[in-house]
């Protein structure tokens, strides 16, 4: 039972990550291969601030803000680099950050990491109560992120994001500053990843560099590709399926609570999964959701009524 509850928490945390990557890659076409970097920033910000007694919600917000600031920073090269080079640059950025916190032990204990106090500690509560509290907190955050992503996707802003993804030069020629949109989307996506990082740190009650291997990024990518880019429901669905798959493969071995067990078999299975998805369902399980606004919907309805009369 505890195992299932634990799984639910992980799905929530990775759901937030998948939503944030979906915003960047699915809608705006930014190949962010450094998702783990912002996850790490959120987690470490939470850990360091909670150690000096800052309340948990402020830690989470601070994690999101620091993460967003780094997102803004990384958007500077993003404007100059082509998508594939950007991917390499951000991937490296994530690794550099991990190596810095690993080797600079004054920051947060280096390789050994530091322990983090849980967000809401109920005195005398059992571990199960703690997990249930965590589920509430994580899913509250997931809901907020989902609503924001959904509102953005179905607004003129979402329309511009997709336009930048399709042809950024044409979008620029139509008066949309791609610099501004890319920076904003990266900031927003990074803020979400930062929140996920904070939740992750406080749930596991410790942070250490080994939790932030590049494989985390790739796991999130598989979620988005499997679920369907540019579809928020798809991102969440992908998070559910991949986390279940991840656990399923782990369960055969033992009951470790680490999300990624660097076992070779799992890597191979993940690789095969990506190949299968890209071969047989390149658009993902769910198709890209069209932009839905009130006005668009009412015009669409009118037209279908008109057509019905005509035929």
């Amino acid at each position, binding site marked *: 039972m505890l195992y299932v509850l634990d799984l639910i928490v992980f799905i929530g945390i990775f759901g937030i990550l998948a939503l944030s990557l979906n915003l960047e890659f699915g809608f705006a076409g930014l190949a962010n291969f450094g998702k783990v970097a912002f996850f790490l920033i959120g987690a470490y910000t939470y850990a360091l601030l909670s150690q000096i007694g800052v309340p948990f919600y402020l830690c989470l917000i601070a994690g999101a803000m620091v993460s967003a600031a780094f997102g803004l920073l990384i958007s500077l090269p993003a404007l100059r680099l082509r998508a594939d080079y950007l991917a390499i640059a951000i991937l490296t950025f994530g690794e550099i950050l991990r190596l810095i916190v690993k080797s600079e032990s004054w920051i947060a204990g280096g390789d050994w990491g530091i322990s983090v106090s849980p967000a809401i500690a109920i005195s005398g509560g059992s571990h199960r109560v703690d997990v249930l509290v965590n589920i509430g907190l994580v899913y509250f955050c997931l809901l907020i992120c989902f609503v924001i992503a959904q509102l953005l996707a179905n607004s003129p802003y979402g329309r511009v994001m997709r336009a930048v993804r399709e042809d950024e030069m044409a979008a620029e020629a139509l008066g*949309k500053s791609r610099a501004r949109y890319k920076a904003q989307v990266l900031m927003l996506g990074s803020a979400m990843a930062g929140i996920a990082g904070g939740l992750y740190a406080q749930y596991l009650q410790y942070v250490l560099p080994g939790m932030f291997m590049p494989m985390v990024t790739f796991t999130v990518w598989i979620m988005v590709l499997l679920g369907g880019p540019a579809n928020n429901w798809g991102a969440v669905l992908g998070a559910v399926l991949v986390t279940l798959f991840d656990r399923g493969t782990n369960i055969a071995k033992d009951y470790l609570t680490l999300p990624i067990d660097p076992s070779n078999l799992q890597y191979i299975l993940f690789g095969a999964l990506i190949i299968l998805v890209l071969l047989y369902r390149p658009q993902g399980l769910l198709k890209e959701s069209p932009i839905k606004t009130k006005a668009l919907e009412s015009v669409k309805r009118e037209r279908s009524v008109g057509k019905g009369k005509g035929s």
Partner: protein
Amino acid sequence: MAPDPRGHPRAITVGYNLLGIYGASVHLAENMQSRRQFVTGEPLMEEAILRIREVSKHFGGVYAVNGVSLDVKEGGICGLVGPNGSGKSTLFNTILGIHRPDGGNIYFNGNCINCLAPHQIYALGLVNAFQLPRLFYQMSVLDNMLVAARGQQGDKLLNSLFLRRKWQEQEKGLIEEALDILELMELDRWAFSPAGELSGGQRKLLEVARALMAKPTLLLLDEPAAGINPVLGRKMFQKLEDLSRNGTTFFIVEHRLEILFEFASWIYVMDRGKTVVGGEPEDISEEPAFYRAYLGEE
């Protein structure tokens, strides 16, 4: 340091541009300009909405545009013709800020726009339609149109989240406008289909329709009638003529000379990166330089 065509060290203009002191840079360039006007010997049109002065653009050693000066009068349709590779599209891209000119100045409504980014030029009301349609192919035809609308409330991050009622209200009007333009281009039946499903000619029409959606002051069209059936092409030009009476100016590159000469009020002829002649269509069609540009030296 190699001297700038404008006659002052390039470092100064570049430096000013970098600092963002556009005013200073424009002023400096304009001082140089007033001296040069007499050199080109061209009369300055009073009501010109677009003034191009000595603009050059080279790629490596090749001068695609080599010291072009011309004026586009406000209102009406101005044509630009010339053989393939004569620099028409490069000139357009330079005006739009996609290429930065290597020399010379471009004024739109009296403001120097050399140093602006494409989206800033668009915001001033100078819009274009690409020669090869650059649509957002996975988005619906209607969404393609709506991206282009100027002065939207909801395309800003915070507005899209917190001023929902405001942009929803605005969008209603925009959709009506978009459907009207689509109807004109005979595209309204496809309003909700992805732009990628349109045929080649329809894509071209949508590209022009999308530019019209911005309600531009000056619209640059690069071969709008290419690949479109003759009847619809003529209809499109008739509509453009109607619009030009309501204050939109058109600057059009077109190889379908019979249509262009019928509707344009002024024609420039370009050859090998230079404007060789400009005048009213009747005069141009009798101009030997025009035939030389197309047929080569006899």
